[in-house]
Protein backbone atom coordinates (compact mmCIF):
# COMPACT_ATOMS: atom_id res chain seq x y z
CA UNK A 1 0.00 0.00 0.00
CA UNK A 2 1.55 3.31 -1.06
CA UNK A 3 0.76 6.73 0.32
CA UNK A 4 2.01 10.06 -1.02
CA UNK A 5 1.20 13.44 0.43
CA UNK A 6 1.25 16.95 -0.97
CA UNK A 7 0.63 20.23 0.79
CA UNK A 8 -2.14 22.25 -0.81
CA UNK A 9 -2.14 25.15 1.60
CA UNK A 10 -2.79 25.87 5.25
CA UNK A 11 -4.33 22.80 6.87
CA UNK A 12 -5.16 21.16 3.58
CA UNK A 13 -3.29 18.27 2.11
CA UNK A 14 -3.70 15.90 -0.76
CA UNK A 15 -3.12 12.22 -0.16
CA UNK A 16 -2.67 9.76 -3.00
CA UNK A 17 -3.23 6.15 -2.05
CA UNK A 18 -2.25 3.23 -4.25
CA UNK A 19 -2.93 -0.44 -3.66
CA UNK A 20 -5.53 -2.30 -1.65
CA UNK A 21 -7.22 -0.95 1.47
CA UNK A 22 -7.65 -4.48 2.75
CA UNK A 23 -6.60 -5.87 6.15
CA UNK A 24 -2.85 -6.09 5.44
CA UNK A 25 -2.89 -2.89 3.37
CA UNK A 26 -4.52 -0.84 6.09
CA UNK A 27 -2.23 -2.38 8.67
CA UNK A 28 0.74 -1.08 6.72
CA UNK A 29 -0.35 2.55 6.43
CA UNK A 30 -2.95 3.30 9.08
CA UNK A 31 -0.58 4.80 11.61
CA UNK A 32 1.04 7.06 9.07
CA UNK A 33 -2.33 8.00 7.58
CA UNK A 34 -3.80 9.06 10.89
CA UNK A 35 -0.62 10.79 12.00
CA UNK A 36 -0.61 12.89 8.85
CA UNK A 37 -4.14 14.11 9.37
CA UNK A 38 -5.20 14.07 12.94
CA UNK A 39 -2.64 15.86 15.14
CA UNK A 40 -2.69 19.03 13.04
CA UNK A 41 -6.35 18.83 12.14
CA UNK A 42 -5.59 18.85 8.42
CA UNK A 43 -8.43 18.51 5.99
CA UNK A 44 -7.59 16.25 3.11
CA UNK A 45 -8.61 15.38 -0.38
CA UNK A 46 -7.78 11.76 -1.12
CA UNK A 47 -7.05 10.49 -4.58
CA UNK A 48 -8.56 7.02 -4.69
CA UNK A 49 -8.03 6.34 -8.36
CA UNK A 50 -5.30 3.79 -7.67
CA UNK A 51 -7.13 2.01 -4.89
CA UNK A 52 -8.42 -1.25 -6.35
CA UNK A 53 -10.09 -2.63 -3.28
CA UNK A 54 -11.53 -1.67 0.07
CA UNK A 55 -12.89 -3.81 2.90
CA UNK A 56 -14.26 -2.97 6.33
CA UNK A 57 -10.77 -2.25 7.65
CA UNK A 58 -10.28 0.44 5.03
CA UNK A 59 -13.69 1.90 5.78
CA UNK A 60 -12.87 1.98 9.46
CA UNK A 61 -9.60 3.76 8.80
CA UNK A 62 -11.27 6.47 6.72
CA UNK A 63 -14.21 6.88 9.09
CA UNK A 64 -11.94 6.99 12.11
CA UNK A 65 -9.90 9.77 10.52
CA UNK A 66 -13.02 11.69 9.55
CA UNK A 67 -14.38 11.46 13.07
CA UNK A 68 -11.21 12.75 14.67
CA UNK A 69 -11.03 15.56 12.14
CA UNK A 70 -14.61 16.63 12.72
CA UNK A 71 -13.70 17.59 16.28
CA UNK A 72 -11.11 19.94 14.84
CA UNK A 73 -13.42 21.43 12.24
CA UNK A 74 -11.65 19.59 9.45
CA UNK A 75 -13.00 17.10 6.96
CA UNK A 76 -12.14 14.53 4.33
CA UNK A 77 -13.15 14.06 0.77
CA UNK A 78 -12.43 11.28 -1.69
CA UNK A 79 -12.26 11.51 -5.47
CA UNK A 80 -11.55 9.21 -8.38
CA UNK A 81 -13.12 6.26 -6.62
CA UNK A 82 -13.20 3.06 -8.68
CA UNK A 83 -16.55 1.47 -9.45
CA UNK A 84 -16.53 -1.54 -7.11
CA UNK A 85 -14.98 0.44 -4.27
CA UNK A 86 -17.63 3.10 -4.79
CA UNK A 87 -20.40 0.52 -4.41
CA UNK A 88 -19.08 -0.61 -1.05
CA UNK A 89 -18.73 2.96 0.19
CA UNK A 90 -22.28 3.67 -0.95
CA UNK A 91 -23.53 0.55 0.80
CA UNK A 92 -22.24 1.69 4.17
CA UNK A 93 -23.43 5.26 3.58
CA UNK A 94 -19.98 6.70 4.10
CA UNK A 95 -21.33 9.96 2.63
CA UNK A 96 -22.67 10.79 6.05
CA UNK A 97 -19.11 11.52 7.20
CA UNK A 98 -16.92 11.81 4.12
CA UNK A 99 -17.58 13.62 0.84
CA UNK A 100 -17.30 11.35 -2.15
CA UNK A 101 -16.64 13.54 -5.16
CA UNK A 102 -16.34 13.17 -8.89
CA UNK A 103 -13.18 15.21 -9.30
CA UNK A 104 -10.27 16.71 -7.38
CA UNK A 105 -11.69 20.19 -7.86
CA UNK A 106 -15.02 19.15 -6.39
CA UNK A 107 -13.22 17.38 -3.54
CA UNK A 108 -11.24 20.49 -2.69
CA UNK A 109 -14.25 22.71 -2.75
CA UNK A 110 -16.14 20.25 -0.53
CA UNK A 111 -13.55 20.35 2.25
CA UNK A 112 -12.98 24.06 2.00
CA UNK A 113 -16.66 24.79 2.42
CA UNK A 114 -16.93 22.39 5.36
CA UNK A 115 -14.26 24.13 7.35
CA UNK A 116 -15.90 26.41 9.88
Amino acid at each position, binding site marked *: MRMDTEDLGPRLIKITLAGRLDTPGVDSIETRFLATLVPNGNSAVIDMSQVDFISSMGIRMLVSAARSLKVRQASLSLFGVQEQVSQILEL*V*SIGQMIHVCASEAEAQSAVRSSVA
Partner: protein
Amino acid sequence: MDDEIYSGTVRLDPSAMLGKPAPVEEIGHYLVLISAGQTSRRIQIGETAITIGRGQDQALVISDTSVSRHHARISIVDGEVVAEDLGSTNGTFVNGVRLKVPRKLVHGAAIKVGNHVLRYERRSKDDIRRKEALDRELADASAYVLSLLPEPISDGPIQTEWQFVPSTQLGGDAFGYFWLDQQTFVLFMIDVSGHGVGAAMHSVAVVDVLRQRALPDVNWRNPGQVLASLNNRFQMDRYHGMLFTMWYAVYDVSSRTLSYSAAGHHPAYLLTPGQGAVTPLGVKAMMVGATPDLTYPVESAAIQEGSVLYLFSDGAFEVTSAAGAQGTLNDFVPLIGASREPGAESDRLLRTVRQGARPGPLEDDCSILVATFA
Protein backbone atom coordinates in the same frame (compact mmCIF):
# COMPACT_ATOMS: atom_id res chain seq x y z
CA MET B 1 -49.62 -20.02 8.92
CA ASP B 2 -47.51 -22.11 6.62
CA ASP B 3 -49.71 -25.15 6.11
CA GLU B 4 -50.19 -24.34 2.47
CA ILE B 5 -46.49 -24.80 1.83
CA TYR B 6 -46.11 -28.13 3.56
CA SER B 7 -49.06 -30.07 2.25
CA GLY B 8 -47.70 -33.54 2.83
CA THR B 9 -46.81 -35.57 5.86
CA VAL B 10 -43.33 -36.80 6.59
CA ARG B 11 -42.50 -40.09 8.20
CA LEU B 12 -39.17 -41.59 9.06
CA ASP B 13 -38.48 -45.30 8.85
CA PRO B 14 -36.91 -46.13 12.22
CA SER B 15 -34.91 -49.02 10.76
CA ALA B 16 -32.92 -46.52 8.70
CA MET B 17 -31.76 -44.97 11.90
CA LEU B 18 -31.05 -48.31 13.56
CA GLY B 19 -28.65 -49.19 10.80
CA LYS B 20 -25.00 -48.88 11.73
CA PRO B 21 -24.14 -45.24 12.16
CA ALA B 22 -20.95 -43.74 10.82
CA PRO B 23 -17.84 -44.76 12.77
CA VAL B 24 -17.68 -42.88 16.02
CA GLU B 25 -15.38 -40.01 15.14
CA GLU B 26 -15.73 -36.40 15.82
CA ILE B 27 -17.77 -35.69 12.70
CA GLY B 28 -21.32 -36.76 11.97
CA HIS B 29 -23.34 -36.24 8.79
CA TYR B 30 -26.88 -35.03 9.17
CA LEU B 31 -29.91 -34.09 7.18
CA VAL B 32 -32.04 -31.41 8.75
CA LEU B 33 -35.65 -31.34 7.68
CA ILE B 34 -36.75 -27.74 7.78
CA SER B 35 -40.43 -27.12 8.25
CA ALA B 36 -41.67 -23.61 8.76
CA GLY B 37 -43.01 -22.87 12.22
CA GLN B 38 -41.72 -26.09 13.73
CA THR B 39 -38.40 -27.04 15.24
CA SER B 40 -36.24 -28.63 12.60
CA ARG B 41 -35.68 -32.36 12.75
CA ARG B 42 -32.23 -33.82 12.47
CA ILE B 43 -31.57 -37.22 10.90
CA GLN B 44 -28.14 -38.80 11.03
CA ILE B 45 -26.78 -40.20 7.79
CA GLY B 46 -25.14 -43.50 8.55
CA GLU B 47 -23.70 -46.37 6.54
CA THR B 48 -27.17 -47.19 5.22
CA ALA B 49 -28.24 -44.79 2.50
CA ILE B 50 -31.30 -42.67 3.16
CA THR B 51 -33.84 -43.05 0.41
CA ILE B 52 -36.46 -40.35 0.09
CA GLY B 53 -39.81 -40.62 -1.63
CA ARG B 54 -43.52 -41.12 -1.48
CA GLY B 55 -43.25 -44.91 -1.40
CA GLN B 56 -43.81 -46.60 1.93
CA ASP B 57 -40.57 -48.54 1.56
CA GLN B 58 -38.46 -45.38 1.66
CA ALA B 59 -36.38 -44.48 4.70
CA LEU B 60 -37.77 -40.97 4.67
CA VAL B 61 -41.35 -41.01 3.49
CA ILE B 62 -42.89 -37.79 2.26
CA SER B 63 -46.56 -38.23 1.41
CA ASP B 64 -46.88 -35.41 -1.02
CA THR B 65 -47.84 -35.40 -4.66
CA SER B 66 -44.83 -33.25 -5.53
CA VAL B 67 -42.59 -36.14 -4.51
CA SER B 68 -42.07 -39.29 -6.59
CA ARG B 69 -42.31 -42.79 -5.11
CA HIS B 70 -38.53 -43.13 -5.35
CA HIS B 71 -37.25 -39.63 -5.47
CA ALA B 72 -33.73 -39.24 -4.13
CA ARG B 73 -30.99 -40.98 -2.23
CA ILE B 74 -28.43 -39.59 0.19
CA SER B 75 -25.48 -41.83 0.95
CA ILE B 76 -21.91 -41.78 2.14
CA VAL B 77 -19.35 -42.68 -0.51
CA ASP B 78 -15.67 -42.67 0.49
CA GLY B 79 -16.36 -40.49 3.49
CA GLU B 80 -18.27 -37.88 1.49
CA VAL B 81 -22.01 -37.43 1.42
CA VAL B 82 -23.53 -37.75 -2.02
CA ALA B 83 -27.02 -36.82 -3.20
CA GLU B 84 -28.58 -38.60 -6.14
CA ASP B 85 -31.85 -38.19 -7.97
CA LEU B 86 -33.64 -41.48 -8.64
CA GLY B 87 -35.36 -40.41 -11.83
CA SER B 88 -38.01 -38.36 -10.08
CA THR B 89 -40.67 -36.44 -11.98
CA ASN B 90 -40.05 -33.03 -10.46
CA GLY B 91 -36.34 -33.44 -9.93
CA THR B 92 -34.03 -33.11 -6.97
CA PHE B 93 -32.30 -29.76 -6.55
CA VAL B 94 -29.12 -28.99 -4.66
CA ASN B 95 -28.73 -25.28 -3.95
CA GLY B 96 -31.11 -24.50 -6.75
CA VAL B 97 -29.42 -26.63 -9.39
CA ARG B 98 -31.22 -29.73 -10.66
CA LEU B 99 -29.26 -32.95 -10.19
CA LYS B 100 -28.37 -34.82 -13.34
CA VAL B 101 -25.58 -36.91 -11.87
CA PRO B 102 -24.83 -37.74 -8.22
CA ARG B 103 -23.30 -34.79 -6.46
CA LYS B 104 -21.11 -34.43 -3.39
CA LEU B 105 -22.70 -32.25 -0.76
CA VAL B 106 -20.95 -29.42 1.01
CA HIS B 107 -21.95 -28.50 4.55
CA GLY B 108 -25.00 -26.27 4.45
CA ALA B 109 -26.23 -27.51 1.07
CA ALA B 110 -30.00 -27.18 0.60
CA ILE B 111 -31.65 -30.20 -1.01
CA LYS B 112 -35.09 -29.69 -2.45
CA VAL B 113 -37.31 -32.70 -2.94
CA GLY B 114 -40.69 -31.68 -4.31
CA ASN B 115 -41.86 -28.91 -2.01
CA HIS B 116 -39.66 -29.95 0.89
CA VAL B 117 -36.24 -28.70 1.87
CA LEU B 118 -33.51 -30.60 3.68
CA ARG B 119 -30.21 -29.16 4.68
CA TYR B 120 -27.03 -31.22 4.83
CA GLU B 121 -24.81 -30.58 7.83
CA ARG B 122 -21.47 -31.93 8.89
CA ARG B 123 -21.07 -31.46 12.58
CA SER B 124 -19.19 -32.81 15.53
CA LYS B 125 -21.23 -34.47 18.24
CA ASP B 126 -20.29 -31.63 20.55
CA ASP B 127 -21.60 -29.16 18.04
CA ILE B 128 -24.91 -31.00 17.85
CA ARG B 129 -25.40 -30.92 21.59
CA ARG B 130 -24.67 -27.24 21.68
CA LYS B 131 -26.91 -26.57 18.74
CA GLU B 132 -29.81 -28.30 20.39
CA ALA B 133 -29.34 -26.16 23.46
CA LEU B 134 -29.20 -23.15 21.18
CA ASP B 135 -32.47 -24.10 19.47
CA ARG B 136 -34.16 -24.12 22.84
CA GLU B 137 -32.68 -20.71 23.61
CA LEU B 138 -33.87 -19.45 20.24
CA ALA B 139 -37.42 -20.54 20.97
CA ASP B 140 -37.30 -18.65 24.27
CA ALA B 141 -35.79 -15.58 22.67
CA SER B 142 -38.40 -15.64 19.94
CA ALA B 143 -41.20 -15.67 22.49
CA TYR B 144 -39.56 -12.81 24.35
CA VAL B 145 -39.26 -10.60 21.27
CA LEU B 146 -42.88 -11.27 20.39
CA SER B 147 -43.98 -10.28 23.89
CA LEU B 148 -42.44 -6.83 23.39
CA LEU B 149 -44.41 -5.96 20.28
CA PRO B 150 -47.30 -3.57 20.99
CA GLU B 151 -50.96 -4.35 20.38
CA PRO B 152 -52.49 -3.10 17.13
CA ILE B 153 -54.50 0.12 17.56
CA SER B 154 -57.94 0.02 16.02
CA ASP B 155 -59.16 3.55 16.61
CA GLY B 156 -57.96 7.05 17.33
CA PRO B 157 -55.87 9.53 15.34
CA ILE B 158 -53.41 6.79 14.43
CA GLN B 159 -54.38 3.20 13.76
CA THR B 160 -51.88 0.40 13.39
CA GLU B 161 -51.72 -3.18 12.20
CA TRP B 162 -48.71 -5.38 11.74
CA GLN B 163 -47.26 -8.76 10.84
CA PHE B 164 -44.15 -10.27 12.38
CA VAL B 165 -42.78 -13.57 11.14
CA PRO B 166 -39.55 -14.60 12.84
CA SER B 167 -37.24 -16.73 10.74
CA THR B 168 -36.20 -20.11 12.08
CA GLN B 169 -32.85 -18.63 12.91
CA LEU B 170 -34.31 -15.52 14.55
CA GLY B 171 -33.07 -12.50 12.68
CA GLY B 172 -32.97 -9.61 15.15
CA ASP B 173 -36.01 -7.65 13.91
CA ALA B 174 -38.07 -5.59 16.30
CA PHE B 175 -40.37 -2.61 16.07
CA GLY B 176 -42.68 -0.55 18.23
CA TYR B 177 -44.70 2.57 18.71
CA PHE B 178 -46.00 4.59 21.63
CA TRP B 179 -47.49 7.92 22.63
CA LEU B 180 -44.83 10.22 23.99
CA ASP B 181 -47.61 12.54 25.14
CA GLN B 182 -51.15 13.22 23.95
CA GLN B 183 -49.95 15.02 20.86
CA THR B 184 -46.87 13.02 19.94
CA PHE B 185 -46.61 9.50 18.57
CA VAL B 186 -43.35 7.62 18.02
CA LEU B 187 -42.82 4.77 15.56
CA PHE B 188 -39.62 2.81 15.03
CA MET B 189 -38.20 -0.32 13.50
CA ILE B 190 -34.81 -1.94 14.04
CA ASP B 191 -32.97 -4.81 12.42
CA VAL B 192 -29.89 -6.22 14.09
CA SER B 193 -27.36 -7.67 11.66
CA GLY B 194 -26.97 -11.42 11.90
CA HIS B 195 -29.05 -14.19 13.36
CA GLY B 196 -29.50 -16.12 16.53
CA VAL B 197 -29.93 -15.45 20.18
CA GLY B 198 -27.30 -12.71 20.18
CA ALA B 199 -29.08 -10.70 17.54
CA ALA B 200 -32.47 -11.21 19.17
CA MET B 201 -31.22 -10.22 22.61
CA HIS B 202 -29.56 -7.15 21.16
CA SER B 203 -32.82 -6.05 19.56
CA VAL B 204 -34.56 -6.59 22.90
CA ALA B 205 -31.96 -4.42 24.66
CA VAL B 206 -32.50 -1.59 22.17
CA VAL B 207 -36.29 -1.82 22.34
CA ASP B 208 -36.08 -1.77 26.13
CA VAL B 209 -34.06 1.44 26.08
CA LEU B 210 -36.70 3.01 23.85
CA ARG B 211 -39.66 1.78 25.88
CA GLN B 212 -38.11 2.97 29.13
CA ARG B 213 -36.94 6.26 27.50
CA ALA B 214 -33.61 5.38 29.06
CA LEU B 215 -31.35 7.73 27.10
CA PRO B 216 -29.89 10.69 29.00
CA ASP B 217 -30.35 14.24 27.70
CA VAL B 218 -32.32 13.33 24.64
CA ASN B 219 -35.21 15.16 23.07
CA TRP B 220 -37.39 12.21 22.11
CA ARG B 221 -39.18 14.40 19.59
CA ASN B 222 -35.94 14.77 17.66
CA PRO B 223 -35.20 11.62 15.65
CA GLY B 224 -31.65 12.76 14.98
CA GLN B 225 -30.87 13.08 18.67
CA VAL B 226 -32.40 9.74 19.47
CA LEU B 227 -30.31 7.98 16.84
CA ALA B 228 -27.13 9.80 17.83
CA SER B 229 -27.64 8.87 21.46
CA LEU B 230 -28.45 5.23 20.66
CA ASN B 231 -25.40 5.11 18.44
CA ASN B 232 -23.05 6.25 21.18
CA ARG B 233 -24.64 3.91 23.65
CA PHE B 234 -24.58 0.80 21.45
CA GLN B 235 -21.12 0.99 19.94
CA MET B 236 -20.12 -2.30 18.38
CA ASP B 237 -16.88 -2.84 20.25
CA ARG B 238 -18.87 -2.98 23.49
CA TYR B 239 -21.54 -5.24 22.02
CA HIS B 240 -19.62 -7.99 20.42
CA GLY B 241 -19.60 -6.50 16.95
CA MET B 242 -23.38 -6.04 16.83
CA LEU B 243 -24.73 -3.44 14.44
CA PHE B 244 -28.29 -2.56 13.62
CA THR B 245 -30.30 -0.52 11.18
CA MET B 246 -33.07 1.70 12.42
CA TRP B 247 -35.90 3.93 11.24
CA TYR B 248 -37.40 6.31 13.76
CA ALA B 249 -40.20 8.84 13.37
CA VAL B 250 -42.20 11.24 15.49
CA TYR B 251 -45.70 12.34 14.49
CA ASP B 252 -47.08 15.59 15.82
CA VAL B 253 -50.86 15.31 15.76
CA SER B 254 -51.68 19.01 15.82
CA SER B 255 -49.28 20.06 13.06
CA ARG B 256 -49.78 16.80 11.15
CA THR B 257 -46.04 16.57 10.63
CA LEU B 258 -44.00 13.40 10.62
CA SER B 259 -40.29 13.95 11.43
CA TYR B 260 -38.04 11.02 10.69
CA SER B 261 -34.49 9.81 10.47
CA ALA B 262 -32.80 6.52 9.74
CA ALA B 263 -29.52 4.71 10.13
CA GLY B 264 -28.71 2.23 7.39
CA HIS B 265 -32.39 1.42 7.01
CA HIS B 266 -34.28 1.58 3.72
CA PRO B 267 -37.12 4.13 3.56
CA ALA B 268 -40.62 3.79 4.86
CA TYR B 269 -43.32 4.58 2.30
CA LEU B 270 -46.21 7.01 2.56
CA LEU B 271 -49.38 6.55 0.59
CA THR B 272 -51.32 9.80 0.36
CA PRO B 273 -54.96 9.62 -0.69
CA GLY B 274 -55.46 10.89 -4.20
CA GLN B 275 -51.82 10.55 -5.14
CA GLY B 276 -50.67 7.88 -7.54
CA ALA B 277 -47.26 6.90 -6.33
CA VAL B 278 -46.00 6.27 -2.83
CA THR B 279 -43.45 8.66 -1.33
CA PRO B 280 -40.26 7.20 0.14
CA LEU B 281 -39.41 8.62 3.55
CA GLY B 282 -35.75 7.86 4.01
CA VAL B 283 -32.38 9.21 5.01
CA LYS B 284 -28.90 7.89 4.24
CA ALA B 285 -26.69 7.21 7.24
CA MET B 286 -24.48 4.47 8.65
CA MET B 287 -25.85 1.62 10.70
CA VAL B 288 -26.07 2.17 14.45
CA GLY B 289 -22.97 1.10 16.32
CA ALA B 290 -20.50 1.41 13.46
CA THR B 291 -18.66 4.42 14.81
CA PRO B 292 -19.37 6.91 17.60
CA ASP B 293 -20.25 10.62 17.46
CA LEU B 294 -22.33 10.59 14.30
CA THR B 295 -25.00 13.13 13.48
CA TYR B 296 -28.15 12.07 11.69
CA PRO B 297 -30.16 14.24 9.30
CA VAL B 298 -33.83 14.73 10.07
CA GLU B 299 -36.50 15.14 7.39
CA SER B 300 -40.18 15.71 7.61
CA ALA B 301 -43.37 15.08 5.70
CA ALA B 302 -46.80 16.65 5.91
CA ILE B 303 -49.43 13.98 6.59
CA GLN B 304 -52.83 14.42 5.03
CA GLU B 305 -56.00 12.86 6.36
CA GLY B 306 -56.21 9.20 5.52
CA SER B 307 -52.52 8.81 4.67
CA VAL B 308 -51.00 5.41 5.29
CA LEU B 309 -47.40 4.72 6.32
CA TYR B 310 -45.73 1.41 5.43
CA LEU B 311 -42.67 0.46 7.48
CA PHE B 312 -41.10 -2.92 6.90
CA SER B 313 -37.86 -4.83 7.38
CA ASP B 314 -35.66 -6.15 4.60
CA GLY B 315 -36.94 -9.62 5.40
CA ALA B 316 -40.15 -8.51 3.71
CA PHE B 317 -38.50 -8.04 0.34
CA GLU B 318 -35.23 -10.01 0.39
CA VAL B 319 -37.18 -13.13 -0.31
CA THR B 320 -36.03 -15.77 -2.77
CA SER B 321 -38.58 -16.36 -5.50
CA ALA B 322 -39.68 -19.75 -6.76
CA ALA B 323 -37.33 -19.21 -9.70
CA GLY B 324 -34.42 -18.67 -7.33
CA ALA B 325 -34.03 -14.92 -7.74
CA GLN B 326 -33.36 -12.75 -4.71
CA GLY B 327 -36.04 -10.08 -4.21
CA THR B 328 -35.23 -6.40 -3.81
CA LEU B 329 -36.92 -3.32 -2.43
CA ASN B 330 -38.08 -2.46 -5.96
CA ASP B 331 -40.03 -5.71 -6.13
CA PHE B 332 -41.91 -4.88 -2.95
CA VAL B 333 -42.73 -1.18 -3.29
CA PRO B 334 -45.14 -1.60 -6.23
CA LEU B 335 -47.23 -3.90 -4.02
CA ILE B 336 -48.04 -0.87 -1.88
CA GLY B 337 -51.00 0.84 -3.48
CA ALA B 338 -51.48 -1.98 -6.00
CA SER B 339 -54.62 -2.81 -4.11
CA ARG B 340 -56.08 -1.92 -0.73
CA GLU B 341 -57.50 -3.94 2.14
CA PRO B 342 -57.98 -1.25 4.78
CA GLY B 343 -57.18 -2.64 8.21
CA ALA B 344 -55.58 -5.74 6.68
CA GLU B 345 -52.83 -4.19 4.57
CA SER B 346 -49.95 -5.83 6.43
CA ASP B 347 -51.63 -9.20 5.97
CA ARG B 348 -52.21 -8.55 2.27
CA LEU B 349 -48.56 -7.66 1.75
CA LEU B 350 -47.28 -10.65 3.68
CA ARG B 351 -49.55 -13.01 1.74
CA THR B 352 -48.41 -11.57 -1.58
CA VAL B 353 -44.78 -11.90 -0.61
CA ARG B 354 -45.18 -15.51 0.46
CA GLN B 355 -47.11 -16.47 -2.64
CA GLY B 356 -44.17 -15.51 -4.81
CA ALA B 357 -41.54 -17.10 -2.57
CA ARG B 358 -39.95 -20.49 -3.04
CA PRO B 359 -41.05 -23.22 -0.63
CA GLY B 360 -39.43 -23.28 2.76
CA PRO B 361 -39.33 -20.96 5.72
CA LEU B 362 -38.42 -17.29 5.24
CA GLU B 363 -34.71 -16.76 5.53
CA ASP B 364 -34.89 -13.62 7.60
CA ASP B 365 -37.35 -12.09 10.05
CA CYS B 366 -40.15 -10.32 8.26
CA SER B 367 -41.77 -7.28 9.88
CA ILE B 368 -44.49 -5.19 8.26
CA LEU B 369 -46.05 -2.28 10.15
CA VAL B 370 -48.84 -0.21 8.65
CA ALA B 371 -50.07 3.00 10.29
CA THR B 372 -53.09 4.97 9.13
CA PHE B 373 -53.39 8.65 10.05
CA ALA B 374 -56.95 9.81 10.54
